[in-house]
């Protein structure tokens, strides 16, 4: 299978490459339109800040290339946020695949003693409804999150998690899938989700 990873300035792609290697896949990392368009599936990972990443994607035309991809695409972490319409992180207009706003976690005064921002660690998924989560029961569905911003619940939500409030742990619209958590660091559950994406 021909899997491409989008190369850009917010990528910690090494962990994603290793996770795919463990599933027997040797991905191509590229920022070239023809390579991305030709791939069977495209992964859009990322760790970083929204406005810097969006500026970079716009400057090299990658935003248009990504938006027009026809095959299954998986956004991970900031990848999910950049596929949304708008992020509160430095007031960033994003790609708008999902008509969803990305907001910063605001623990209430009561929550502040226990809920730290960023959320760092393993949290559970619920209301999962997508082939992405095939074979994963709610009681097993712990995945690893590191984030200060979250996508609101929306008609595109295919899995929820709770931190301060219920938020979109995963989104889907047509061929675009996205997860807020790090599949590549989420143990066997994460590997299963990545494998499910490869099977789409």
């Amino acid at each position: 299978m021909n899997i491409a990873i989008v190369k850009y300035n917010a990528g910690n792609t090494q962990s994603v490459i290793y996770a795919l290697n463990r599933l027997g896949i040797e991905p191509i990392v590229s920022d070239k339109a023809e390579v991305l368009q030709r791939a069977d599936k495209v992964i859009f990972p990322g760790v970083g800040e929204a406005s810097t990443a969006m500026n970079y994607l716009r400057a090299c035309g990658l935003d248009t290339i990504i938006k027009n991809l026809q095959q299954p695409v998986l956004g991970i972490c900031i990848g999910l946020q950049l596929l949304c319409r708008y992020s509160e992180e430095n007031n960033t207009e994003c790609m708008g695949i999902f008509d969803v706003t990305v907001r910063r976690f605001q623990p209430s005064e009561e929550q502040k003693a226990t809920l730290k921002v960023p959320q760092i660690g393993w949290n559970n998924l619920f209301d999962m409804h997508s082939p992405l989560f095939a074979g994963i029961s709610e009681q097993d569905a712990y995945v690893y999150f590191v984030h200060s911003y979250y996508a609101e619940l929306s008609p595109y939500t295919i899995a929820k998690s709770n931190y301060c409030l219920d938020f979109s742990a995963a989104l889907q619209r047509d061929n675009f899938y996205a997860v807020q958590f790090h599949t590549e660091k989420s143990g066997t559950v994460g590997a299963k989700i990545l494998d499910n994406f490869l099977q789409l």
Partner: protein
Amino acid sequence: MLTKRIIPCLDIKNGKTVKGINFINLIDAGDPVEQAAYYAQAGADELVFLDITATVEGRKTLIELVKKIAREINIPFTVGGGISHVADVDALLKAGADKISINSSAVRNPEIIGQMALEFGSQCVVVAIDSRNLNGQDIVHTHGGRVPTTLQTLAWAKEVQERGAGEILLTSMDHDGTKSGFAKQLTGTMSHMLEIPVIASGGAGTKEHFAEIFENDDASAALAASIFHFREVDITELKQYLVQRGCPIRTISKNLIA
């Protein structure tokens, strides 16, 4: 619900795992990659690798080791020990580490906390604090806990948060190696004072000690070494025990094959 993290720590010297009792008398406890894989499947939530190799050759060995670990294991891991430059962090993150931990170098030059956070994001900058009580005051120590500084532990914790640290790994030197429980009071005070997560370290001897430190949210995570390495506490059993105690804990399914 966000769960409490159980973190085995592997001390590395020249590519092998060691564990000091009160940081002296090192005993070889095995191969780091093999141990990392064992802990990942047993249910460890993260791993910490602390490199105590001082030589230049040793540092190159570390990068190779980090690559091997990243290829092998599918949970997050932190690498610490002897990191003092942005370039060190860059090399470790590129090799596949998720976070780095700094200790003496942050005390020597606090500005590097901000530089590293700006360059790579706060989420990957862990500041380790070794604290020892001297005449009734909690004082930061460096060089593996041997050298006292003039810094008060809680004031230093607040400062590193403000400078951009994403997490604090607090080791109580008074408790380390004693197996008599974590420093609940100091850790709890720090945890409730800060906005960033605090990892408790030093003193774990039994399953009950983990339950105690997670009560009242006194720590976001707990770290231990020898009790895991010598299987005095089994991680899978520990997590089952904590679930029974009502603690939010990630459990691992045995029937999921990926």
